[in-house]
């Protein structure tokens, strides 16, 4: 009798181990009914909760678009806050399904950390912000300065490279989150705050006296920021990649949240019909979704241009120009491969 119980327990344990071999991310998300999306701990305009506690921002919009495409509801997202240090562990361990947290696409992260970057939603570069009272007009004058940096980021390495290349010294003050950096910088505990230029603009917009702080003209690195997923599930990577592409293509094709219902009834442009699922082509089936996936993704927050304008564009306090992030047809770098 006892023996039987023991053998039974062993069999159960063995089944458990075998059961650990996971289903696809898409199946997991559908079964859960919720998308776990990793975001920052709060960078205004990119990902931060608003006064009602709803997450808002440019990176958040990507999560919402994916949730709309996969689950049919942009609200079905669980936002998991990650710091520069915890984000990769969270993604690699499967705690989050995707990470949209102004993360720089680098070769080592792609190949060595085993992540798949699904595109670039913001082309950025690392900049420096200083108090105007210091009278500094160029990053080349920062020899000996105390610099606040967020640890665990590429900015840390770029900073070391830049000061070394220019034969300057500095005192790094490692900081865990953007909020801490802001506090240290405003208290004057560091002369300079360095991070991606977009992040600097977002941070400066929350100051009481933004006019007293200047972002120096030097951009010392290329920081292509984009969402990423873990290696090992290409279908899931395709879903996130083509959801982003759909947003960019929508801007290019003139599909907006205002006219999408109108256009989805059928147009003269076959590509619009293919994307919105109003023709016989079923693009959604290729990535395990239905025909209307792109339509839902675009309806969630509008096309790329609309998302940009609403969260970080020139009419917002953050006031970023499109610059490199304009469509390729307007001299920028945002470009979507064709939908066919």
């Amino acid at each position, binding site marked *: 009798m006892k023996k039987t119980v023991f053998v039974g327990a062993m069999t159960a344990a063995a089944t458990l181990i075998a059961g650990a071999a996971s289903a696809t991310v898409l199946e997991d998300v559908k079964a859960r009914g919720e998308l776990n999306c990793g975001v920052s701990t709060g960078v205004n305009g990119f990902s931060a909760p608003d006064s009602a506690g709803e997450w808002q921002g440019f990176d958040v919009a990507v999560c919402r678009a994916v949730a709309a495409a996969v689950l049919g509801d942009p609200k079905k997202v669980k936002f998991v806050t990650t710091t520069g240090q915890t984000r990769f562990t969270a993604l690699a361990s499967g705690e989050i399904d995707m990470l949209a947290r102004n993360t720089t696409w680098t070769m080592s992260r792609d190949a060595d950390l085993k992540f798949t970057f699904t595109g670039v939603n913001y082309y950025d570069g690392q900049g420096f912000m200083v108090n105007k*009272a210091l009278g500094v007009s160029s990053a080349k004058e*920062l020899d000996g300065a105390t610099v606040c940096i967020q640890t665990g980021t590429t900015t840390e390495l770029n900073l070391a490279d830049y000061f070394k290349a220019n034969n300057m010294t500095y005192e790094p*003050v490692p900081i*865990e989150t953007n909020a801490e950096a802001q506090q240290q910088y405003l208290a004057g505990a560091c002369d300079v705050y360095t991070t991606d230029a977009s992040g600097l603009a977002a941070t400066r917009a929350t100051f009481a006296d933004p006019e007293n702080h200047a972002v120096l003209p030097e951009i010392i690195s290329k920081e292509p920021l984009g969402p990423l997923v873990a290696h090992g599930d290409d279908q899931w990577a395709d879903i996130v990649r083509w959801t982003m592409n759909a947003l960019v293509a929508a801007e290019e094709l003139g599909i907006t949240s205002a006219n999408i219902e109108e256009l989805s009834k059928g147009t003269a442009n076959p590509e619009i019909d293919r994307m919105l699922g109003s023709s016989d082509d079923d693009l959604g089936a290729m990535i395990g979704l239905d025909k209307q996936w792109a339509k839902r993704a675009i309806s969630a927050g509008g096309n790329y241009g609309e998302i940009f304008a609403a969260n970080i564009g020139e009419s917002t306090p953050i006031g970023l120009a499109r610059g490199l992030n304009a469509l390729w047809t307007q001299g920028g770098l945002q470009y979507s491969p064709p939908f066919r």
Partner: protein
Amino acid sequence: MATTSETPGSSFRLSMLLYDTRYRSLTIQVIFMFLMTIGFWWLVDNTLVNLAQKGKDIGFDFLGARAGYDINQRLVDYTNDSTHARAWIVGLLNTLILAVCACVSATVLGVIAGVLRLSKNWIVSKLMSIYVEIFRNVPLLLWIIVIFAVLTEITPAPNAFRGENATSSMLLFDTVAVTNRGTYLPGPLFERSLGDFDLGIVSVSTNYLVLLLVIIGSVMGYRALQRNATAVQEATGDRPVTWWKSALIIVAPMLIALIAMGFHLEYPELKGFNFTGGSYLRNSFIAMWLALTLYTGAFIAENVRAGILAISKGQSEAAFALGLRPNRTMNLVILPQALRVIIPPLISQYLNITKNTSLAIAVGYMDLRATLGGITLNQTGRELECMLLMMMTYLIISLIISGVMNIYNNSVKLKER
């Protein structure tokens, strides 16, 4: 007849493993070991399989790669061209220096607070009770952050020291600058430096090595002098006057060594964005040190109090009856006996301090957790390896501390003859 013909060996049945008290405990232990082994094997195997599924291997090659990041507080040479292994050592040394400083100051504070809490002076003992209760009942992390925030917010930025009508000025005849980045103190410089002494991984300044040897020599000389005086006293009844000799033995060799090496102080000076020159205690270090001292000091105070209360009242009454003053009673009678009770819990407080230094990331102090377990882990993506290395490092430090303290404990504990 039938009962005696069976030998005990042949009568063994399987069920006896469970029902016979001679075998039962053995059976339970074997089963437990078996389950433990299976559980452990399952954990390791699961980890390896999952890592393999993600296409990750386990390897420590990354330690030899270029680190690429800078560390502000370095006790040994380190640049961003150094390896991750070197960054590990820099972090380890930062952890150790913080732990050592905090252990020393927490012990001093704890002993004083513990003794004073037993004081007959009502105000003093209540003040100490308040200190102990406040500090040991609020989480350490909060103390660290509060102290750091206070240091950052109330002290002036280096900028405030600049210009004709500066709003802040340096203290102690312009030698010490307290800023919101840290405290700049005069630093030692040696004009005729003896160079460094290379130990392979770290290089030690020969100057300090010489000074250390001089101090050890002086102390040994002083002891010899005292022994000699005691011998004379025992032989003749008169204790020879030794104060000027001991002063000479302690001060003179040190002075000669310092002068020979051309010792002078370098004063901090406002240059560019920051003060340069002298020694620099970063606020992150000060905050960690203060918080660990105050927090652990409260626990040590309680240990000390418990140790003193454990000594029976008869001991102090006997000491008083012999005519010893309260001060000497405490030093000669109570504390030596109380140490037996105090040392074992003190060991765990030292271990706590050492492990609690890993909270340093909260204020950006670059300890082991921030270098190996923070930036290196993040830049290389070797979570498992870095965590294992870190656990191993903390384990070794802790084992060394408890080993050394146990030796000390054995030397002070009651010798039973």
